[in-house]
């Protein structure tokens, strides 16, 4: 298939799925959501995140850019209040802050990896990875869906990772901890490249 044909097929698929979504506007299935997501090659977005922590009277706000590149690269580039770059490629996490670069292996930090693996697996349309790590609960319609991911692993600080979205776009990511602290990240997509 030539590049053009590929693009055209993608467009058709997008149209047809939209049409179908409007027709059956009641419920969304996990398969359907994964099909939306499987189209992603590259996503650019901006985010504003608020953290609600017990003992801290005000929400802590941060903002910056997000990027996803299929199949497994995810970048969170925080610009405010303190610059920090977090890049996840394959199994490696690179953190750049205060002029220093750290490399970590996510396999060594299963607890921490639960916080972002869900987002990455969803954007990549990797249902196997999702169900391997989390108990998955999907509600809502294709236009307004909510994916609640609760870790299958026992004894983690993470209670659930909630992803809210519409069609193939994630609109918000909520992290809820067992102790009641939580964060809400609002995501707005800048462009779609397929």
């Amino acid at each position, binding site marked *: 298939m030539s590049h053009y044909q590929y693009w055209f097929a993608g467009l058709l698929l997008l149209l047809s799925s939209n049409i179908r979504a409007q027709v059956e506007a009641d419920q969304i299935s996990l398969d359907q959501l994964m099909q939306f997501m499987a189209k992603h090659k590259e996503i650019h977005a901006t985010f504003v995140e608020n953290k609600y922590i*017990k*003992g801290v009277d005000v929400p802590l706000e941060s903002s910056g850019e997000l990027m996803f590149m299929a199949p497994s690269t995810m970048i969170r580039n925080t610009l405010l209040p303190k610059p920090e770059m977090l890049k996840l490629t394959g199994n490696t996490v690179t953190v750049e802050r205060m002029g220093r670069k750290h490399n970590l292996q996510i396999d060594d930090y299963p607890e921490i990896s639960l916080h972002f693996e869900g987002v990455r697996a969803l954007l990549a349309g990797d249902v196997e990875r999702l169900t391997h790590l989390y108990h998955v609960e999907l509600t809502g319609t294709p236009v307004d869906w909510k994916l609640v991911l609760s870790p299958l692993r026992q004894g983690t600080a993470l209670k659930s990772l909630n992803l809210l979205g519409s069609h193939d776009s994630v609109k918000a990511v909520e992290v809820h901890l067992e102790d009641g602290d939580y964060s809400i990240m609002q995501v707005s997509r800048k462009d779609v490249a397929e």
Partner: protein
Amino acid sequence: MYATQKNQLILQILWFLGVLLCGWVIVNTDYRTDLSVFLPSEPNKKEAMLLGQLQNGAANRILLVGIEGSDTATLAQIGKSFAGKLRNHSVFSHVLNDQSVIDPAEQELIYTYRYLLSPNTSAELFTPKSLETLIHGNLLELSSASGLLSKSLFMRDPTGEVMALVDRLTPVQGPQTINGQWFNDRGDRALLLVQLASTGTDTKAQETALQLMQTGFKDVVQSYQTQNQQHAQKTENIRIVISGPASFAVSTQNIIKEEASRLSGIGLILIITILLYVLRNLKLLFAGLLPVFSGVFAGIVAVSLGFGSVHAMTIGFGITLIGESIDYSIYFFLQRSQTAENSGNNPMFWRTVGLGVMTSICGFSTLLFSGFTGLMQLATFSIAGLLVAVLCTRWILPTLLPQRLSIHDLNPVGAWLRQMMKKGHHFRYFIGFLTLSAVLLLVSRQDHLWSYELNDLSPIPAALLDLDGELRADMGAADVRHMLLLQDKTQEQVLQRCEQFLPRLDALVAQGLLGGYQAPCVYLPSQAKQIQRQQALPDRERLEQVLQEAAHALPVSAQSLQGFVEDVAYSKTLPLLRADKLENSTFGITLGVTLYSVKAGEDLIHHALIQLQAPLQDGKAASLNHEALQTELFDILDEQSVLLDLKQDFNSIYKTYLSKILKYSAAGFIAIIVLLLAALRSLRATLWVILPLACAMLCVTALLHLLGSQLNLLNVIGLLLIFAVGSNYALFFSSSQSNMTLASLLLATTTTVIGYGVLIFSQIPILQTIGITVASGVFLALIFSALMAPVALRKDSSSISRN
């Protein structure tokens, strides 16, 4: 006749007892292969500090490992499982293959001792204003990606001491990490850093550890290969390279062992073949070798008694040096085989042998004053060995052999030689021309003649050193050339000395003169400093009060920071951090390298090493301005706190010794000339002996220069040996000019050239240098002496012997 036979028997028994005694000492001798004997034996204060740093046990336990010969992913997998395998062995105290994250042991250490470790701990930190600013700043940290995870740390450490310490204590530079495994820049060599649990001087344990690594690596590769066919293909060419002091010691030892048997075997076979051809008698051959072996025994014993231990190099090298004692046997045999009037105890003959030994001893004595233990051992070995060999030739050999020996008639060889000398006499002008060119070359290139690198004396093969340099560069540990070396009576005092420098060094880092530094007192503050920090911590009531005040302007309640109050109160009564606490963490490796004690007689002297890193320029390490640092730190540097440029300082030590050796060599030359004068009793005859030798030495020097090697200390010693050996031959020649003597000289030269010549094939640089210098020098000396010989000597032998 009866009395003489009884005397002979007594002599033989005494000799046998002596050999037995030597054997006992040899068996009980401590043999060493470490590099310390190649360092100055009586260093001055600064040198002693430098040497202590070299001999530091902890640094000598570190090995760098590279795995190469496959694709990156495979190398990463093999590297990780190999590291895992090594960690299971108690032989290795630390195995690092990815240090970008601090492991739990260090996290706990930093967390517990943060107020004793942190340079921020002071009374000023715990004022309402400063707490407010710091807590506010750290709230921003909480808004980072990992904020939700680090919030509990924030509540206990709102001023951010832990994170600041993590940044301070972990190295900035380091190799890149791919798939959780360290790699070089190109990604084609996986890297590991291993610390051995044994001490640096325990070669046995080091060898076991290295073998364990090799077999462990094989196991890992094998189990990887059995997983599937593809794996087997990918790891076909995979291999492991190991470098570090322990590896040097073991490999050098193995090379010495292997070469000692191979090279000396080849040399011995060649020499024995020649001797057999000449002597035509096995019994004579054994008798001829007797003085050499007696000499070797005596040499080992003398070194063992004089130095307490014998270096393997001394034996390997020393045997070559006293190989000339075989010449004494040769002269002796030829002496006995000659006409009746010359037989028996010819006083003239023994006088010549005695003089020969003395010239050789003059040459070797130079080494005795060299100041390098290795060379001093060699000199002791050679002097004792030669003396015993000549005594053996004089008193034992005659008792074992009949009065008249029938050996191969060498007269035809001598006659042929004389013929050649006659024919080649015209070439003497050519020698003059050669020598003149050599002199011109040497004079015009005099600035490039000498090498001042200490490495020239290293017994470590160049290939190993190159590999080490490569692995170090891969590890990002290439430039530890500049350092501050501090010393004091106790560990506490040296740590305090170290702490004096920290604020000054921080200022230099801020100025951009320094890129950074690694100091032991950062990991382990002095007890005084820790107590001072503990005293600066407020008590519980005071801190609660201050926190209440600070919290007014903060979105955080004092209540939620209760953990902080608890931790500060706990730190105030915490037992101080001691070195043993750090041992189990990777900080222990850094501490071991930078904080150590050195034996100085009965006492221990404590050293602290602050490694200075060059500032970065366009992402690359620029050079460090040594003079600027010296000026900046001038007021706190003294005799016990010195700023070092390792390369320069070691080379300047070497320069001092080189000039010393040159002086003693000159003395050696003069002593030999005086001996020659005394023996020959003629200025003219002496000149005729010296001239060809001088020409040979100049030509060899020029030849070495043309071959691309710069002259070093060993070449000087080699030249002196040419002179000693060459003049030795001249003495024999002057005592008798018969065809037989001429032939025996050829024989002696051949054995010497073979003895030294096989050293040319050695992988050990210093043996190679001596081998090339002496073998070619002695060879040239013989040819030149023959061709330049005065007319009288070229006359037919019959006319002389009839005189």
